[in-house]
């Protein structure tokens, strides 16, 4: 038995992000595998301790690059719990619309990312073109395409512009009518069905050992465990939506759940456009100084459901103008580091890139 060492390195056309996987292979079967994180490390947790509470809003969207709104939401929720601040009603609904659009764009990017490892490049082109239309709506609402800095402590930065509701409704009607086309190109495609069906199966006991959350957990345990239903935040208890599950956990079922979640997000956006009341959108958090307010002492953890799992900020404040310690719980930390070490041995080399894509391993939020 001979062993050879391979790098599915940082520069690879089929991998997402910038993390390298070290593989020991014998023929085509993987014997040992490790993930090497840390190439995107910027020292966020140290930088956040040296900036004021307002200045941090410009820094934190860059923690998770494909879906930056969850960072702003967790930070604002944690600080509002410590300040005991009541956010106006209209701001909650606008926050829900931004979060659901971010979820749709992240799911489209992950589903289109199937094109890299398997060779179905048409799917990637369709998904990126639709994602570009969502980025244009973000530009109309908040001013920037990728890093919005729109959800702040105390509400939302500005009201929605006029005429945005027609743009949103045309876009989501168009997306909804083409979901069947995505299904034909991706998971029902006869040329790649052997790569996806009955591969990368995740049994139930492994889920609790690793600490996996999100779509991996819902497809392995067949239960609707979702942070939005179990501990709801921001008016999710006043809209009706379902949480899709599946009882057979292979790669095809997980991609199927992603498309169903896109459909549910479209339902949530439609309902919140109808139910949104009028009113102010922002409240000032501190008295006196407009930019240098202080936050009372406390320790709080604020979780949010991202497209990959449970994402949260752990915040400790000492009563000063800067945070004392901020810790980021990345949603892909258990799936990326532990999953690749414990799960991949026994499978083939071409399954390594598919694991990274279907389980949702996003390297900037692992490294911070």
């Amino acid at each position, binding site marked *: 038995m001979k062993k050879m*060492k391979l*790098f599915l390195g*940082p520069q690879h056309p089929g991998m997402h992000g*910038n993390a390298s996987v070290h593989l020991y292979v014998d023929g085509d079967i993987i014997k040992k595998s490790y993930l090497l994180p840390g*190439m995107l*490390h910027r020292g966020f947790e140290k*930088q956040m301790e040296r900036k004021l509470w307002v200045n941090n809003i410009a820094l934190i969207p860059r923690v998770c690059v494909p879906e930056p709104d969850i960072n702003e939401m967790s930070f604002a929720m944690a600080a509002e719990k410590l300040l005991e601040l009541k956010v106006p009603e209209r701001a909650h609904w606008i926050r829900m619309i931004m979060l659901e659009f971010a979820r749709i764009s992240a799911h489209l990017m992950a589903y289109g990312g199937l094109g890299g490892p398997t060779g179905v490049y048409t799917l*990637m082109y369709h998904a990126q073109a639709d994602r570009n239309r969502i980025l244009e709506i973000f530009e109309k609402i908040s001013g*920037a395409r990728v890093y919005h800095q729109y959800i702040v402590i105390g509400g939302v930065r500005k009201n929605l512009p006029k005429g945005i509701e027609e743009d949103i409704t045309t876009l989501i009607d168009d997306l909804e009518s083409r979901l069947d086309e995505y299904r034909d190109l991706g998971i029902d495609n006869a040329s790649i069905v052997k790569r996806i069906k009955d591969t990368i199966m995740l049994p139930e006991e492994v889920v609790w050992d690793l600490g996996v959350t999100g779509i991996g957990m819902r497809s392995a345990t067949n239960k609707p465990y979702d942070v939005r239903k179990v501990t709801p935040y921001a008016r999710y208890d006043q809209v009706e939506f379902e949480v899709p599950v599946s009882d057979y956990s292979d790669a095809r079922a997980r991609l199927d759940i992603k498309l169903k979640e896109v459909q549910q997000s479209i339902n949530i956006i439609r309902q919140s456009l109808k139910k949104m009341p009028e009113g102010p959108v922002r409240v000032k958090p501190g008295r006196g100084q407009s930019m240098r307010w202080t936050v009372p002492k406390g320790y709080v953890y604020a979780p949010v459901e991202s497209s990959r799992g449970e994402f949260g900020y752990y915040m400790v404040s000492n009563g000063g103008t800067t945070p004392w310690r901020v810790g980021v719980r990345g949603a892909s930390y258990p799936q990326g580091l532990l999953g690749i070490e414990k799960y991949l041995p026994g499978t083939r080399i071409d399954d390594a890139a598919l694991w990274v894509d279907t389980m949702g391993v996003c390297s900037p939020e692992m490294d911070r």
Partner: protein
Amino acid sequence: MLSTKYTKKDVVKTKTDRKWWEIGDYFRRNSLWMLMYCTGCCAIELPPAMTAAYDMERLGMGPMATPRQADILLVSGYLSPKTLRRLVYTYEQMSEPRYVVALGSCPINGGIYHDSHVVINQLDQYVPVDVYVGGCMPNPESLLNGFVDLMEGIKNKTADGWKRYHEHYEWYKENQKHSLGELIIHDEFHE
């Protein structure tokens, strides 16, 4: 795993070779191939620029998988020392002439991470750069503008970063050693 052995050589100066270089530059600048290496956050605007939204292929550019056959090394965003070691290793494997395009404001002067302990502040000291595209997340249209500037530079013979790397080789290596410590990549990390 050592860096590739690098031998310094002089740049060509004879007359007939200059004419071949002119013809070569014409074909080169109309079909540049880009290495797919997403190093930092600005890489999230690359798929819209490469695919159907803002098509890059109308300029003649396309993606390339291996560094040995690519023309452009696109440094998209900030660089930590860990990535810089592997980037220098990749840059020295590319065949000449090769061009470097830096995206974002982080390679210019550090950007938003200028006082962080794991982000480098000025890319020009380690690897020669031909075109900078500024902005904190530049638009895909600015990125295409930067590529057109690079093509103009090839036409006017001002995009000569690879020649500078030959001439000032010791200066670049000394800067790399000062900031990175050592350039050898230890891969027995988890053993």
